[in-house]
């Protein structure tokens, strides 16, 4: 961790800010260029008079040039005073309301997918080529091919509505009832995790097989270490690096909107669902808030992964921007 590292981190942060700026500008432009109807007319109610519309236009600043509107929207976004055109509620508050639900979903699901992926990936690598390994491989492909929302709907209908094993949807606050909270989240966690279990277990399996052929692993075996110790201390430790990298990127993406389908199917009322509603109503402030929230997590986790890599491998810093 020298000044080289510090410079790298600073450069990464600057590019992060630039990317976020570009994303916000593009989204704002899209919603101003696209014919979504004049928001002032819609806000004025069913039979608007011309003066009402004018008043609203002035009050909300729709009569100003686009770049001034953009600057004002961004200013409000950062100070937390952004108000929805449609519901007239504070956008930041709404996102903060939904965030715990989205986080509960994302964190739980990522624990499920990491645990299953590591167990199945290791098992597959040890039983390489056996019937059980091939079966797991086929199952992983099926998991990858399954659309999340379809899987969710099927699970919610058959395990939820038909068999009554789990609630078919909804969310219960953790503080109200921890057991109900857990019960309501089991199906969403697994629904969201299936795809990632498929991908990660295959990546891990391939990596473990490759690592097992390395000299230092053979040396560890030759030293007389137990098979278990070799696998955990020497093989798994190394093979976890690519998985953890993937996890960083995917976790950011799930928080930043990837969970929207799962939230929708199980009506969890998280940020994703708020986003879907806001977009359906062309509610520009809400859309801006949600997209910035999503892009923020994606960018932050990308940067974290890059920085962690640079800390582990000094060559990346010298190259400047490492190609992904």
């Amino acid at each position, binding site marked *: 961790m020298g000044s080289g590292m510090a410079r790298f981190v600073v450069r990464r942060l600057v*590019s992060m800010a*630039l*990317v*976020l700026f*570009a*994303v916000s500008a*593009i*989204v704002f432009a*899209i*919603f101003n260029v*696209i*014919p*979504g*109807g004049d928001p002032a007319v819609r806000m004025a109610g069913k039979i608007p008079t011309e003066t009402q519309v004018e008043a609203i236009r002035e009050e909300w600043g729709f009569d100003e040039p686009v770049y001034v509107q953009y600057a004002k929207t961004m200013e409000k976004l950062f100070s937390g005073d952004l108000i929805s055109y449609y519901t007239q509620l504070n956008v930041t508050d709404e996102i903060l309301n939904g965030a715990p639900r989205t986080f509960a979903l994302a964190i739980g699901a990522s624990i499920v997918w990491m645990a299953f992926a590591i167990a199945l990936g290791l098992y597959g690598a040890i039983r390489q080529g056996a019937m059980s390994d091939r079966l797991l491989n086929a199952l992983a*492909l*099926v998991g*990858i*091919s*399954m*659309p*999340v*929302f*379809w899987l969710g*709907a*099927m699970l919610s*209908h058959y395990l939820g*509505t038909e068999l009554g094993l789990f609630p078919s949807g909804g969310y219960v606050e953790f503080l109200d009832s921890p057991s109900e909270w857990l019960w309501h989240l089991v199906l969403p966690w697994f629904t969201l995790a299936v*795809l990632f279990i498929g*991908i990660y277990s295959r*990546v891990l399996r*391939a990596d473990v097989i490759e690592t097992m052929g390395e000299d230092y692993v053979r040396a560890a075996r030759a030293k007389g270490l137990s098979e278990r110790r070799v696998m955990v201390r020497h093989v798994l430790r190394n093979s976890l690096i690519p998985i953890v990298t*993937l996890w960083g990127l*995917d976790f950011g*993406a799930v928080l*930043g*909107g*990837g969970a*929207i*389908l799962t939230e*929708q*199917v199980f009506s969890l009322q998280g940020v994703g669902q708020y*986003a*879907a509603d806001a*977009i*359906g109503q*062309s509610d520009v402030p809400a*859309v801006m808030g*949600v*997209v910035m929230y*999503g*892009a923020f997590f*994606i*960018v932050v986790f*990308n940067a974290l992964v890059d920085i962690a890599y640079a800390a582990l491998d000094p060559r990346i810093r010298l190259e400047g*921007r490492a*190609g*992904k």
Partner: protein
Amino acid sequence: MWANEVAHTTPEANHLTDKIEVDGRPTDVIDELGKPIGPTWSSRFFLGADGNGRDIMVRLLYGGRNSLLIGLLASLGTIVLGLLIGLLAGYYRGRVDAFVGWLLDVIWAFPVILLGVALGTALAVGGLELGPLTIEGDSLTIPILIIAIVYIPYLARPVRGRVLALREREFVEAARAQGMGSARIVFSEIMPNLLSTVAVMLPLLVVNAILLEAALSFLGAGVQAPNASWGTMIAEGVERIISAPHLAIVPGAMLVATVLSLAVFGEGVRKVLDPKAEVRIEH
């Protein structure tokens, strides 16, 4: 693809009041409670009807045609744009590369589904008018364009990496020494060497594009009614899952089967062409 040759009716036609023979008895396609008929396993309504009395098998064929068409065209779009961008960045390096890298970061940073839904719903209402170009709101072009753009970084990044390595090779230097122009070197010397990368990526891109189309349609931002796609059919099915679960199961199963076979095919291509490449599937 040959849906119109096989089908006995059109995907939009409804048969709300029709009666068909089941086990020798005439049966309503939709019963008094509005519950659609289940699979009959005969030539009409083979897989049953949906809530509007439309034949699911027929809609499945037409919907599949849309899903596959969007998947293929979007992937081709991604490949053309991704190749071009990757080639530019890799060949010219320096400022061009830095700018392209930043551009890809921006595309990458967009929450994919959010952006897709935002564009899809906004465009579905009013369509798009860009100078002389007018796209109708319910046209398939919109989901195709959105999906093509979103996946550019997946292709452009590996292509750039390959080009960076290729441009230092002897045959490129030889071409330069012969006095070939940059454009010719890029297109006739470097590009053919990228074919294996593209061939490995293509099936995976199609898989991702089909799944993303289904997700967008499920959220109401992809293919617009009355057009069908497997995504919209699942969305319609999920709404009536309690009374008529076959509406959601059938298109979902078709989607899984299609994507699965493409994924296995892609796996095969990858093993043949590039056994070490690590390619990701992601939604």
